[in-house]
């Protein structure tokens, strides 16, 4: 410190730093010595820390970061935590395997576990098509309503999840094919118009009466084998009920015309190929709980 800065504050007798604001001068009081020692202590600690813990990042030409004597690694720690979580879960997971679906639904603890794991598996795998909470979308059935194409029981849902729908690699997949009446020239355009009028009349819609009655005959000949004489559908072949208010591919005239002309034959993967049995069971319980379970 240069000489001319040695300004002494009169009342306290303490040297000032020479800084002055509005006539107020800053005193240059000495720091307590223990403060200094604590600072030295932190330096010593940091050196020890760098030796014991991974501290120096991978520098070019040095390969990896330093590992530290303690062998601490966040990556290993995470792996261990995941492992222990898995071990914890496997207890409940194996309980899921042995219990029947009904037992899972009635046992409060198992049910909670299945719901939690089912919900997260649903979000990861199913919600892309069926929407969060099974809200559905055009072409993708709503799972929260009370209409089912194939089955709405616990076992039925489990089967669908396991084997998929029209998933050709799985011999046990749920399978049926609706003919593309227009594209494959099975029906004339006029005939399709008639049958669509009839189909819409089944759910009480206002239609062209003449067309509808012409369509009734075509329906009996072409459609009733699967959708039933009254159009109430057949779950063994996944033929939807045409008399209710639920239309997976849309219930407007254009939508239904399109369906009859081109057929839809939607596909769902067989999740048994990708998910383990406990997860499938959890999913079945979860989907069953969404509001439509039978």
């Amino acid at each position, binding site marked *: 410190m240069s000489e001319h800065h040695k300004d002494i504050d009169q009342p306290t*007798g303490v040297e000032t730093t020479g800084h002055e604001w509005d006539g107020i001068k800053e005193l240059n009081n000495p720091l307590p010595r223990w403060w200094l020692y604590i600072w030295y202590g932190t330096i010593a600690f940091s050196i020890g820390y760098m030796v014991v813990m991974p501290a120096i990042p991978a520098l070019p030409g040095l390969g990896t970061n330093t590992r530290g004597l303690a062998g601490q690694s966040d990556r290993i720690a995470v792996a261990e935590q995941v492992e222990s979580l898995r071990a914890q879960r496997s207890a409940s997971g194996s309980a899921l395997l042995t219990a029947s679906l009904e037992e899972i639904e009635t046992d409060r603890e198992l049910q909670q576990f299945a719901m939690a794991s089912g919900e997260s598996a649903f979000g990861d795998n199913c919600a892309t098509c069926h929407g969060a909470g099974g809200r559905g979308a055009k072409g993708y059935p709503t799972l929260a309503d009370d209409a089912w194409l194939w089955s709405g029981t616990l076992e039925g849902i489990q089967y669908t999840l396991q084997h998929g729908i029209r998933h050709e690699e799985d011999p046990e997949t749920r399978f049926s094919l609706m003919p593309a009446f227009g594209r494959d020239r099975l029906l004339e355009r006029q005939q399709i118009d008639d049958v669509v009028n009839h189909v819409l009349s089944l759910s009480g819609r206002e239609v062209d009466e003449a067309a509808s009655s012409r369509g009734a005959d075509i329906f009996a000949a072409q459609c009733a084998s699967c959708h039933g004489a009254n159009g109430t559908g057949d779950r063994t072949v996944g033929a939807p009920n045409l008399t209710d208010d*639920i239309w997976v591919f849309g219930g407007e005239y254009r939508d239904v015309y399109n369906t009859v002309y081109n057929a839809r034959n939607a596909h769902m993967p067989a999740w048994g190929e990708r998910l383990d049995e406990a997860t499938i069971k959890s999913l079945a319980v979860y989907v069953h709980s969404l*509001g439509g379970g039978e």
Partner: protein
Amino acid sequence: MSRVTLITPKSPPPAPPPQDLYAKRKQIYPKLAHGKFRTVKWLAMAGMLGIYYLVPWLRWDRGTGVPDQAVLADFAGERFFFFGIEIWPQEAYYLAGLMILAALGLFLVTSLFGRVWCGYACPQTVWTDLYIWVERAFEGDRAARMRLDAKPMSFNKAWRKVGKHAVWLLIAFVTGGAFILYFHDAQMIAQTFFIGEAPLSAYWFAAILTFTTYALAGTMREQVCTYLCPWPRIQAALTDEHALNVTYRYDRGEPRGPHRKGESWEGRGDCIDCKQCVQVCPMGIDIRDGAQLECIHCALCIDACDEMMKKVERPTGLIAYDTDIAVARRAAGMRTQYRLIRARTVLYAALMVAIAALMAWGLLNRGTFEVNVLKDRSPPYVRLSDGDIRNGYTLKLVNKSGEAREMSLEANGIDGLQLEVIGLEATEAGRIFLPVAAHGVDRYRIFVTVPQETAGGRDHFTLLLQDTATGELHGNRTSFMAPGD
């Protein structure tokens, strides 16, 4: 009121010492004071320590299944218990309110009477006082301690030092141990702690508080107040020339100087420069230098000075609780006046009353039962096969009372509305009875279906819950979504 200039009494500036960047701590040997403030401080200390160590042992019956400890922060159970009050995590704002009240209380007291908190109630002051008491028991009072420290190590010195530190550590451990009693059942943790079965966090906290108590009250002492604590800085902004602070009345004391018995008091001040006020000061400062950041306003220098004044047969109160303005006015030959009611004191007091009233009102009127209805966001609504529209909800019932309840549930507000609770049957009258556990949260899934003729756009309905035993009613207006506008 005429303005007066405040002047700080100046002792002649000492010759500037060669200044070092770092200063060694000067050991302070506070002498034992006798007098009314020392007595008050002993009582305050006994009170504070008593509260701290004994409160966790108080019991308060809250019924079965709930802890019976009067004051308990139960982290595992997510509850805070304070006698008859039970605070849930979502009500943490009561704790925030308490903190604000405490801060305002500190402001008010400081603007009225200076650092009363520092002088009498702060744990740092209380435990330091206790530690000095132990020190005095082993090593004697100021003069004896100074002599002992100057002597080379001997058996006599060794056992006194070892004994002192041992007792300090014991007090530190009891302090750290008492802390964890506030977070666990006191009786249970006191037993499991010693057989090694308490949770790890309990040992950690006990260890940390043992260490801090020993270090801060035993070895750091006044340095905590001067260097670590923010309060001395804050209080400078809260105190003003009208606040009653421990003050050396220089108007009466100066000019100071030794006085021999029989000499005249004419033309001189009452301060006989005996330095008793400096010797008793736990902060090692001289109050006669004026208001200082270090001064914790413990008032021990008042006691020391009063004792001397009695000896020399002068009136006591040369050092006293006084205001800067009063001293300055007297020095200028004016009449003194005290103004405890000032804008800031009124404001602090008013704020305190307002907040306390708000909290009391909230506590008195808070129900022991809460209804939360969470509407499913996805799907917002579901069209059923017959065309009707259904919405799903999660009903959360929070029961803060110690008794289980049964609530009957009804819904109305939309024509043709139908209510269904998953897992529960409705009676013929369309009512559904929901059991709710004591001190708990129960969740129910409910479905509300509205015929397509009356559904459309956003509508509202009311869920009505009634306690079947007491008739207590809770309504909750909730929205219902349907396609359309």
